[in-house]
């Protein structure tokens, strides 16, 4: 039952993604063609809001619902940030979706995106398989 809150928050995220047309392949094309501010506005204002939220949590030492101190995992730089980032960018432009919108596209009735999702799972699996051989 403790996971129901994450299901609800995920549903809220899904509704926002669809209503703001972030899951639209067309919007991603428009963004990468520099022909609309929409996507830059969404991502930019999300980052600023997230930053303010984290700042407030740190400034006032706000604790979690269960009373624990908030822990923010540190990202460690690897060359994968570059190579993997470029590969993901290529895929983002083809599918018109990052992983969140992939799930939302399926929910919006574009059921064929299940195939894309399965291929993304396969991609993740292959990464796990060849990880040691890749530059990091």
């Amino acid at each position, binding site marked *: 039952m*403790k*996971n129901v*809150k*994450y*299901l609800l*928050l*995920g549903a809220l*995220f*899904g509704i*926002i*993604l669809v209503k*703001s047309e972030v899951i*639209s392949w*067309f919007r991603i*094309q*428009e963004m*990468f*063609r520099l022909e609309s501010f929409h*996507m830059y*506005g969404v991502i930019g204002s*999300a980052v*600023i*809001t*997230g930053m303010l*939220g984290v700042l*407030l*949590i740190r400034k006032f030492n706000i604790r*979690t*619902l269960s009373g624990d101190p908030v822990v*923010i995992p540190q*990202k460690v*730089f690897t060359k*994968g*940030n570059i190579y*993997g*980032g470029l590969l*993901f*960018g*290529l*895929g983002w*432009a083809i*599918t018109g979706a*990052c*992983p*969140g919108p*992939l799930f*939302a*596209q*399926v929910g*919006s*009735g574009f059921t064929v995106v299940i*195939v*894309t999702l399965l*291929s*993304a799972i*396969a*991609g*993740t699996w292959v*990464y*796990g398989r060849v990880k040691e051989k890749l530059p990091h």
Partner: protein
Amino acid sequence: MNFLHQPWPWYVAGPLIGLIVPLLLLIGNKAFGISSSLRHICAACFPGKIPFFQYDWKKESWNLFFVGGVCLGAALTLVFFYNNQPVQLNPATIAALKASGVQEFDELMPGDIFNWSRVASPAGLVFFILGGFLVGFGTRYAGGCTSGHSIMGLSTLQWPSLVATICFMAGGFIMTNLVLPHLMKWLL
């Protein structure tokens, strides 16, 4: 109720998405990130003997509930708040896509590409199989996606996430402007 049927502008959607970062931290000390769900699915279903998938994925099951919620939320929007209007795109984008062979502009996605009859075609191979593979492989190699790096990582001022975000964008610009137009003329 009218608001729920209209598309939402960026200044409504962006701050709402940003709020998910502190909300997840406060309700359970969870870091916002979607692509990890793909790893958990691998760890749960076909871990093999691969060390990368040997961990207790059940401890991360909140993430699977979250992406299940994303799918559910999108379905609820479709059922209750469907506006049946085409996306209001820049006419220049429409003209360029038409020149590349895209025909349908009346939904969120081009219906002439994203339908089941394309699965076994060369277009399906590119748009679903190759595209999906790059998303899954690339995000894991990069250690996160738009949510984990661009929103969570940048919100918490982590420079590796800035590097990753710049690379996401670079990959997208290259594909959209240099590769995809030619590819689509041939595929569509």
